[in-house]
């Protein structure tokens, strides 16, 4: 028990740091993904906006969902949400707490992506190059172009090699302008997110501390209970399997002894541990039969109490109980037959 206790404490204290670690790794992965990504603006009037905004908004959405997928507690939340009420009430505050803490962690990587994208400037330059104010920034001496032509020319701003509107508006001027707007948006976004995070964290102790402590305790409890239940079931399954197999071997040995018409051989009292472990199977033929039987006809998932071992071997009803009558249910207990 002590060992389990230490492991649980380690897991508990470390679950938070484990989750924070995954969060940090995803944020770094998101920044790395952006720098590895080969951004290629299409430089065509309507495609630019779709491409630029798509790169700005679609990967964060994917990263957000990935944040949920990588979080182990999602299944715990779903289970607690969908379980029938039974004898235990459901507390929506606990569900909300679990969801909020998961959502907060999942938000970090998308926010990093959007910030890095805006601070870099390529996406906004690509998306909004056709909206540059040519009247203020451009060369006023240039003869007017039709709307469509102007858009076509402006759309090529991000692609310096094919840009042919230098007389209309200098490429560097337009790029600097768009990048300045993009970086200003980026820093404002970063400031906004940091302020939100700060407010969320600091307003909590001011208003809802007691409710928070309660929700946190019960969400940890649900997590620990689930782990302990799995642990107990695994322990039970282990014992079940052990006894089942033990009974199989004993049944086997008794069956064979009965089939050969001599009484089951009981290990002599002074034979020692090794003889007991042989479980009455002591020659090649018997072992082979046991193995064949294990493969062909696995025993039922039903452990009979030890007192009934002597009546093993022939199909039949169990002996009626010796205590006052209780409602009887017919139970067919079938035994393995070689």
């Amino acid at each position, binding site marked *: 028990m002590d060992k389990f206790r230490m492991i649980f404490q380690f897991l508990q204290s470390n679950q938070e740091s484990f989750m924070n670690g995954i969060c940090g790794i995803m944020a770094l992965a998101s920044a790395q993904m952006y720098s590895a990504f080969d951004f290629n603006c299409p430089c065509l009037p309507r495609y630019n906006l779709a491409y630029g905004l798509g790169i700005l908004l679609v990967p964060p959405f994917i990263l957000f969902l990935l944040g949920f997928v990588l979080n182990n507690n999602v299944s715990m939340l779903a289970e607690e949400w969908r379980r029938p009420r039974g004898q235990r009430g459901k507390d929506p505050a606990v569900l909300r707490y679990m969801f909020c803490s998961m959502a907060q962690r999942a938000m970090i990587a998308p926010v990093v992506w959007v910030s890095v994208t805006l601070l870099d400037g390529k996406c906004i330059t690509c998306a909004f190059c056709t909206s540059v104010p040519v009247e203020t920034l451009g060369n006023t001496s240039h003869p007017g172009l039709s709307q469509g032509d102007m858009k076509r020319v402006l759309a090529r701003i991000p692609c310096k090699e094919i840009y042919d509107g230098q007389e209309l508006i200098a490429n560097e001027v337009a790029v600097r302008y768009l990048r300045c707007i993009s970086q200003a948006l980026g820093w404002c976004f970063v400031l906004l997110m940091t302020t939100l995070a700060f407010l969320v964290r600091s307003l909590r102790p001011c208003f809802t501390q007691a409710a928070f402590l309660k929700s946190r305790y019960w969400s940890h409890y649900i997590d620990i209970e689930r782990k302990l239940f799995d642990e107990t079931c695994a322990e039970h399954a282990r014992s079940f399997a052990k006894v089942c197999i033990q009974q199989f071997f004993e049944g086997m040995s008794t069956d064979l002894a009965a089939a050969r018409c001599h009484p089951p051989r009981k290990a002599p009292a002074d034979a020692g541990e090794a003889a007991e472990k042989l479980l009455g199977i002591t020659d090649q033929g018997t072992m082979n039969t046991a193995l064949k039987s294990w493969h062909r006809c696995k025993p039922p998932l*039903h452990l009979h109490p030890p007192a009934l071992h002597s009546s093993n071997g022939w199909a039949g009803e169990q002996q009626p109980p010796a205590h006052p009558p209780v409602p009887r249910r017919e139970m067919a207990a079938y035994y393995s037959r070689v």
Partner: protein
Amino acid sequence: MDRFRMIFQYFQSNSESVMNGICGLLALASVKMYTCFDFSCPCLPRYNMAYGLGIMFVPPIALFLCGLILNRQSLVMLEEWRRPQGHRRKDLAVIRYMCSSIMQRAMVAPVVWIVVTLLDGKCLICAFSGSVDPEKFVGFANTSPVQVQQLLAKVPCKDDELMRNNTSRKAVSRYLRCWSQALGWSILLILIVAAFLARWLRPCFNQATLLQARHWSNYIDIEQKIFEETCCEHSRLFAHKCILHFFESMRQEIKLHSFSLPREGEGAEGEEYLLRGITDQDQVNKLLKVWYYEKPPLDVSQVTQR
């Protein structure tokens, strides 16, 4: 007991060093962010000042807030500040001490950003290139005011076609950079002198109060950590009892409805005990079904009273 003592000592020594570590990491991150950031001045008359001053002051605010968020002690301080009085008095000196130590640590990264920005010079050149006196510089002296503004606004952009080989541009740039670096070094000197004086002169004023405040702020921090740990321990034990009680009640129910021989005599005999009376597939399935459809109530009072 020994284990708890080791844990206390670990928390005690680590709280300060963890916070100092975070502070240092944020300062390094701030320098790294500045070097990675691709500064590109818009070189347009009104935009320059907004951009330059924005880059100089907005990131420090974000870094300051980050410093507050990442510091665990800020939550502890807020809780202590807002808690109802109850049976325990509130000591404002402790709260003030915690607040000042949090603020000092949170101020490091923003100050690093501002100093690095000033020493590098790009921000100030971008922000104030339009504000220099054109008479001082040969290339800008004899042009109309509107044109002068346009030209001065383009000074930060070295590669602009108008400014490519303009010596006056370099003169303005050097002038502004000199001011920027002077400002940067002065701020750095003032801050270091202030920190030095504060540390040296502190023992002269209220040392006893300071020691008390520091002790009790550490105490509050440790108390909260231990409370969380105790709650975890308690919820583990609670869950353990709850599950055992559940298995036991399942076993009673099965005994009531089936007619298998009573197994009272088995006792705690290794495997038999671990099986807890659940010995066939149907019983296991029933147990798992009941666990999902009807979780037991959160009440282990009968178990603990036995």
